[in-house]
């Protein structure tokens, strides 16, 4: 594309702009754009960068609390974790690229989210992820799992940030659109946080990191359209990651941030140099002038169009204080990274690009940002879930057989095959490794811990978006609580299908409403997030998947709980059990049915139960705790037994429901806890108005439900550990 390229209606359409959007562009520019300007409008107004279908609804999410330092709108959210320190975190999707090229797609997803966090001044301390793949029987699934896991590991391991956990589910709805959502958590001094607003007329605009190549051009546009049968041809738009350079960039940026040289800093993510320069100018209400000839490039004859739209990885843009250029240059040269002054801050509020002394782009920044399209697309209520039959094929399966099958099913089996490919211990602060309810990393040099979890139950969101949205937030809150943490805030990664279809918008809005209710009721605000739409192939959408990354604080890591059952403890069930089997894994895996409404979430009970548990962990009276989620009570108990290598004998009174429904129903707001002093716990629970039921005692090497044959831990372990390696070896 050269400067003389004629702007035809076809070219405008290829850039993803509608007729109305193009007309608005002409009004803003007061003339026809050239190709560089068209490219810049195209990416800035893409769904990926402008959130044009989602912005209106995102405002419904609560974003404030006394401990929130920075909510949505910056590179990542920032919360106060006490003692003058802040946790900075965000989750972001890299779905489309990962389907096309799983290793590089996933790897660069990790690289991008790391940059969002260290660009704000934080040292990244933990990576997490939320993965969704197609059905194990789909021909592509094994290849995608293998590539994505290797890519996440390949990047995180090299950078030296531990990948401490995540989630991974399988469903046919993701056959053509996998989800790769990556989250990074970092720690910074609360008074040393860096923002992106450019300031200081005349200050140098500096480019650091890798050179710019032709990779990833139009990545943001690709992420804003559905897939079709030709999507394979988009492989060249997937970027290639270099974690070694990222590691150097982290160290160089943090070294520079320890000086007072930086005015503003912004990573180059989606839409590369375009979005970073526009963002910095817009936030600072200034202009930016860039000389294309000074941008470090790794290929010859790159045009301004290519330079501005490239999504080459491991690059940052900074505005430096006058006279500090040499200090900064020395640091980046020490780390053998490119450092180039490519422009300056102006007072024009325009983005001006020059090449060979000629102006090749001149766009007023305020309307480029403020007049980005905003749509309130039509919504339709999603159809009600298929009704639950009176009797299901699963009802006749003995509970022991059902348990063994469930713990060995794709969605509930051990994820060891995955996490052993991630270095989850580097930095020597991982005090709870993957496999529990939440991962816990110690805040370096202190006794505090950050508990981190990622959660979503798409089958609930599909059956009832509002309940599903509520449940997703509640489960994250519950997982943090089960480790003994005070849940503080969340980041969200909203993955949906094509927003131009009313039923998809209905799912989106329903999930947002449910999430908003739960965030409010649990004082668990959203501080950062990302929206990924158009997760469809040939008109078939993914399940609505609003993934949540939750972060909480443990004041003293000596007083946290793990899921590992210890011998000679009383085992209690906290919360109400009605035997709700709608949308449950038991129904799907044992009964072969996806039907029924998801379990309702009682947010008042959720809060009461969680606050009670947290208190009991903090005072040391509960030493093992596990929240109940997919698979219900018996699966949770089996997971605790396997983690602690300790069996249990329990007696169950199903009351008004059946025994299988009691064992495997997925009623919300529940925990299993183990304690050395059962009597005391019962008394305290009753005083707190919390429903508590004694189930039995831990001991031995089998799980025994009174009246049923014991199941040895070996049998459970073989089932639980067996599926993943067997499948991947397939």
């Amino acid at each position, binding site marked *: 594309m050269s400067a003389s390229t004629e702007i035809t209606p076809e070219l405008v359409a290829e850039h993803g702009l509608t007729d109305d959007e193009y007309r608005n562009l002409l009004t803003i520019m007061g003339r026809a754009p050239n190709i560089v300007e068209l490219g810049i409008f195209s990416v800035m107004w893409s769904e990926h960068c402008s959130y044009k279908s989602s912005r209106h609804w995102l405002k419904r999410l609560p974003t404030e609390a006394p401990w929130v330092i920075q909510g949505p709108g910056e590179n990542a959210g920032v919360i106060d974790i006490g003692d003058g320190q802040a946790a900075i975190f965000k989750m972001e999707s890299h779905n489309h690229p990962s389907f096309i090229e799983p290793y590089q797609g996933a790897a660069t997803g990790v690289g991008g989210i790391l940059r969002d966090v260290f660009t704000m001044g934080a040292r990244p301390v933990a990576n997490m992820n939320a993965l969704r793949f197609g059905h194990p029987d789909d021909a592509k699934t094994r290849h995608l799992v293998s590539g994505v896991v290797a890519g996440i*590991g390949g990047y995180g391991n*090299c950078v*030296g940030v531990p990948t401490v956990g995540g989630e991974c589910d399988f469903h046919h709805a993701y056959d053509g659109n996998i989800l790769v959502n990556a989250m990074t958590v970092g720690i910074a001094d609360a008074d040393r946080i860096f923002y992106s607003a450019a300031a200081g007329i005349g200050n140098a605009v500096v480019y650091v990191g890798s050179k710019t190549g032709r990779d990833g051009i139009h990545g943001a546009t690709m992420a804003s359209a559905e897939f079709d049968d030709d999507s394979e041809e988009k492989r060249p738009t997937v970027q290639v990651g*270099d974690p070694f350079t990222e*590691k150097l960039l982290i160290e160089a940026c943090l070294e520079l941030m320890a000086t007072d040289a930086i005015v503003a800093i912004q990573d180059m993510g989606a839409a590369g140099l375009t979005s970073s320069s526009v963002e910095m100018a817009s936030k600072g209400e200034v202009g930016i002038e860039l000389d294309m000839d000074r941008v470090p490039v790794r290929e010859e004859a790159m045009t301004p169009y290519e330079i501005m739209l490239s999504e080459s990885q491991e690059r940052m843009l900074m505005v430096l204080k006058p006279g500090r250029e040499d200090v900064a240059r020395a640091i980046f040269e020490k780390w053998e990274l490119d450092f180039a002054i490519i422009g300056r801050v102006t007072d024009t509020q325009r983005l001006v690009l020059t090449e060979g002394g000629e102006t090749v782009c001149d766009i007023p920044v305020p309307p480029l940002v403020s007049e980005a399209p905003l749509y309130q697309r039509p919504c339709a209520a999603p159809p009600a879930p298929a009704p639950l039959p009176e009797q299901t094929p699963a009802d006749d399966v003995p509970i022991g057989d059902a348990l063994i099958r469930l713990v060995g099913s794709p969605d509930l089996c051990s994820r060891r095959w995955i996490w052993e*490919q*991630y270095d989850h*211990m580097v*930095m*020597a602060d991982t005090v709870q490794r993957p496999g529990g309810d939440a991962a816990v990393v110690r805040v370096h040099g202190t006794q505090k811990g950050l508990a981190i979890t990622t959660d979503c139950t798409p089958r609930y969101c599909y059956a009832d978006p509002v309940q599903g949205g509520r449940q997703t937030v509640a489960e994250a809150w519950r997982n943090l609580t089960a480790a003994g943490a005070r849940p503080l805030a969340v980041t969200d990664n909203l993955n949906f299908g094509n927003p131009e279809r009313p039923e998809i918008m209905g799912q989106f809005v329903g999930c947002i409403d449910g999430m908003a209710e739960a965030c409010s009721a649990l004082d668990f605000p959203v501080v950062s997030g990302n929206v990924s739409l158009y997760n469809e192939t040939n008109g078939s959408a993914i399940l609505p998947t609003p993934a949540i990354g939750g972060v909480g604080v443990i004041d003293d890591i000596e007083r946290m709980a793990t899921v590992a059952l210890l011998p000679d403890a009383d085992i209690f069930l906290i919360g109400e059990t009605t035997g709700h089997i709608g949308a449950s894994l038991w129904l799907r895996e044992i009964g072969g049915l996806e039907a029924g409404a998801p379990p309702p979430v009682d947010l008042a009970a959720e809060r009461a139960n969680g606050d009670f548990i947290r208190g009991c962990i903090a005072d040391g009276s509960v030493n093992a705790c596990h929240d109940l989620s997919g698979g219900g009570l018996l699966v949770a108990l089996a997971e605790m037994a396997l983690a602690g290598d300790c069996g249990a004998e329990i007696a169950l009174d199903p009351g008004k429901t059946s025994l299988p429904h009691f064992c495997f129903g997925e009623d919300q707001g529940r925990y299993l806890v183990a304690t050395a002093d059962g009597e005391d716990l019962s008394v305290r629970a009753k005083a707190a108005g919390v429903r508590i039921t004694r189930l039995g005692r831990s001991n031995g090497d089998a799980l025994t439900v009174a009246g049923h044959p014991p199941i040895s831990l070996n049998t459970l372990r073989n089932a639980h550990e067996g599926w993943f390696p067997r499948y991947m070896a397939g």
Partner: protein
Amino acid sequence: MKSAVIVFPGSNCDRDVQIALRRSFGSEPAMVWHGDEDVPDADLIVVPGGFSYGDYLRAGCMAAHSPAMREVVKRAGAGVAVLGICNGFQILCESGLLPGALMRNAGLRFVCRDVHLRVENTETVFTRGYAGGEVLRIPVAHHDGNYAADPETLSRLVNENRIAFRYCDMGGDITEDANPNGSAANIAGILNEAGNVLGMMPHPERLADAALGGTDGRAMFEALAGKIAA
């Protein structure tokens, strides 16, 4: 007692080992940038884990040619204790201080988990804090930890008692199942001829703190700090 840690671009266990050294030595280790030939006087030099130069070309290859490593080779020749962990082990092999090479894991995947090690030689400055045949639990985290050497070298390592650690099961038996990466003879760590250079794939610095779930790695640093009588 003084210690030093060599830091390469891409090292990422340098801080972890710094903390373990600080704890056992009671003094700050010198952190030495790879470009410095001026390695301060030290009783112990650690070449830490990570991905020096991104593992590009071959793990440890480029780091082995850095100015700091030239000095480390000299010091090793003069009898200074040199400990290479993970990528550090790869670098020591590439620099010729230790024989053999670390190839891609037999399973072809990166592997991060606790493994068991049997202490094969307690007569060294690194291992004298352990009992002979003692079984340690220490994590590995690597993609290229598959130790290989020609048969002659392997038999020399055995005959000269230069295998420091071997992968074993919980009971101390050397089995194929206990070998996380396909290493010849389940080798997890080896010594040079003089016994003052140790390279090992497992990370003792990662289990030297009870809060992390174990302290089996600590006795190595305590011994090196001279806190355990020879």
